[in-house]
């Protein structure tokens, strides 16, 4: 853990779920024996993005809503370096939702950790697409009129290859999820439910503690897509956590590229002036 320690003090609110996710991310990297110089951590803009200087490792902190394509581009350039993207529910299910859709269907080799506090924390508590309907939020004094998006049902509709859910109070389970996610062959979608003591008054730490349970302890088989989808989407009474679905059968995007068959180098190793004389014949 020391290898990833940054001298910068954390700036999250007391009781923020980001502390737990931050700790679990570092633990997972250490458990996987990944040196800080051998990883790229990509951050969206939001409270979670303030993590970008609270740990070491190569990091890139981009634009709101755009972390997935930024990370995907990096991953395509060098698949030897694990790429982990962090984003919030605000960015990922509103401004950046298109990127999420196509990343799942493309199955880029990367991990996406979705900090899910069901609101826009950093801009002082506006409703996200995942905020519960009728909740009063900043800019929604009468409660939000929109229906809440069922994010898990949505993600499962895209035929994902890895879906997990953790919650910010269970660092051990999050660590377990993340080690599997980072090792996953393609796009690993990790929904991290997190407490937001300042703005989320509905799904609090206590609520999460009460409702979350480890699906594996009840015999859930993460190979069963249909059961996983039902389990993930239905949170009316209890919230299933752990690795809900995983298949390693689907090749990652870069493995599907016919143009790269037989290529043993990564694009980062291929930068040189290329003689194009062989391609000029077509124009003679």
């Amino acid at each position: 853990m020391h290898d990833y320690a940054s001298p910068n003090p954390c700036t999250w609110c007391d009781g923020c779920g980001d502390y737990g996710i931050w700790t679990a991310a570092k633990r997972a990297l250490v458990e996987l024996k990944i040196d800080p110089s051998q990883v790229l951590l990509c951050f969206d803009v939001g409270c979670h993005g303030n993590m970008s200087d609270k740990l070491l490792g190569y990091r890139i902190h981009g634009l709101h809503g755009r972390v997935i394509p930024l990370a995907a581009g990096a991953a395509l350039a060098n698949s030897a370096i694990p790429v982990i993207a962090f984003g919030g529910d605000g960015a990922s299910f509103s401004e950046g939702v298109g990127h999420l859709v196509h990343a799942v269907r493309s199955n880029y080799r990367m991990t996406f950790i979705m900090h899910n506090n069901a609101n826009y924390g950093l801009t002082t508590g506006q409703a996200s697409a995942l905020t519960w309907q009728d909740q009063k939020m900043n800019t929604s004094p009468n409660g939000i009129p929109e229906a809440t998006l069922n994010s898990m049902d949505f993600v499962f509709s895209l035929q994902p290859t890895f879906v997990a859910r953790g919650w910010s109070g269970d660092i051990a389970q999050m660590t377990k999820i993340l080690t599997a996610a980072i090792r996953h062959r393609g796009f690993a979608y990790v929904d991290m439910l997190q407490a937001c003591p300042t703005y989320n008054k509905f799904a609090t730490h206590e609520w999460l503690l009460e409702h979350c349970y480890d699906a594996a302890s009840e015999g859930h088989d993460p190979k069963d897509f249909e059961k996983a989808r039902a389990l993930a989407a239905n949170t009316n009474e209890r919230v299933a956590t752990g690795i809900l679905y995983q298949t390693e059968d689907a090749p990652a995007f870069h493995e599907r590229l016919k143009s790269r068959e037989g290529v043993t180098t990564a694009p980062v190793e291929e930068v040189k002036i290329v003689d194009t004389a062989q391609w000029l014949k077509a124009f003679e």
Partner: protein
Amino acid sequence: MVPFGSAPVRGPEPSQGRGQSRQLRSPWPLLVFPFFFTEVTRLSIKIVGAQGQGVNSVGEMCAKGLKRSGYCVFGYREYMSLIKGGHSSYQLDVSIDPVHSSTMKVDLVVTFNHHGIEKNLRDLKKGGILLHQTPQWKFRNDEDKRYVEEQGIHVIEMPTEAILKKLKAKPILGNVLITSVVWALLGQEQEQLHELVREQFGHKTDLLDLNFACISEGFAVRKDIAANFSLPLPKPDPAWKNHLLLTGSQAMGLGVIHAGCRLFAGYPMTPSSPLLSFIADGQNETKMVVKQAEDEITAAQMMVGAMHMGTRAATTTSGGGFDLMTETLSFTGVAEIPAVFILAQRPGPGTGLPTWTAQGDLQLAVGSGHGEFPRLVMAASDASDSFELMPEAFNYAEEFQIPVIVLTDKQTAEALFTQSPFDQTSAKLKRGKLVRDPKALAQLSSTDRYDPAAPDGISQRWLPGSAAATYCAQGYEHASDGSFNEEPDNARQQMDKRLKKVEALKSALPEPLYTGPKNPETLIVSWGSNRGVILDVLESDQFKKRSIGYLHYQYLWPLKTESFEMLSRTAKQTVFVECNHGGQFASLLKLASGRDNTRKILKFDGRPFFYEEMRDRLLSTLQ
């Protein structure tokens, strides 16, 4: 972003060969260049019809055949934003001298349908030939009849349908038939056409025989019904034979490959799509990672992610798509990540004229993205530039750790150029302060990444995966290791650091290209695709005795002004030529040099400057 305007673009397109008259960069202040003036004898052929009828096939076949016979060919395409129908054209301007522009009046119009007979009749020069295939065509209005009579237009009807029926050939073979009539009119040999179709259908004997039969019929048509007409070309110059015939997009695609780009992401939008298609079509040979992204933002972000990881990557788009990329552009500015954006201009605002040309996005390129940050804007003007500037774009991006915007336009992207084979040896790989040596990496500390004391503001850069201290490529204002820092002193230092690069970049950039006498009376200043037509006009008799110089800018921001100031100070008049409404480059140069630039030849109707038009407008400006 919706891909507006879809062009069925395949194979060779219009272009402009620099030929032997390549301009040289002036080793300022020695800018004396000899003028070799000869009146260009040129011939123009215009093939018209509905989109999907075969206009492009005939144009391409003629262009290729003529180039191989020893002519310089410049091709220009017009088409509409639809797939089938509409009215499109493919014009070839042919000469033994270098030709880089299209004329408004042509010697031959070949029309696939009756619309072209009426619509393009007035494109013909006096004594021109109208070749059509509409049975029993009669001009319906008196004005047309009078025009044909007064101008001595020869109207030739081809019995296409009857011939194809006789040969039991499909309508598509009509293209070969038409081409062969044109070929015969141009006084060329059958064997040259045989060679072309053999290349295309050599593996299908029955189809090949049918093609040969069509060619014989085409030559027979010429003998039977057009024996008295011909379009004599001068004796060919074999020097053109080993030239390439390709579009600006194809040249730029080759330039991107040449530059060592290994990931290319884009989203379809005319006129940038042909570049994306060309690179995508070549991926199995180049092994490049090519991604058609879900939108322009994705394409730009992927490019930046890949660049940050350490490969060379680029993206391409047009006006509206570039608008979507500009937040990403700004991000690369603050995080100092090299980036290459290729912006193919078409007329805006809004969806505008999707399949036409413009130079209206220069100030967009210069001013887009929030906040202040250094950038380089450059523009390609022809196939030669499109190839040669790409390694430069990547080098500047990496050396200065800045975004680079390469402008092109529909005219450059889709014109067909006769181009000498590209030089494969001049380009150098320059990656600037990229640290790769293990010993040097071990010495680095996190604070070296954005060290405000770095000379010229260019700090060391190293890649994820390097055995070194790590840092954050930070989109927020940051301290030298990429940590958040909102202190005023730090903000000032980091802003200074980044913008210090502008002066260093400016000194590193080459002077603009100059052609002309040492102290010209008239100085013409332009950029982008206007170069071809300006050079063609200046080489004509009307201009060769005048003291005119042409200053051509490839690097548009930041601006070098020394050559311009020296030349314009002594010139009696300075004239700007641009395809936009406001004289955008003239404004930028005024901003940079303080010299007021009032004389402008502007065009903003989606069409490039044509030869006669440029000649006449220049003449009236000079008087």
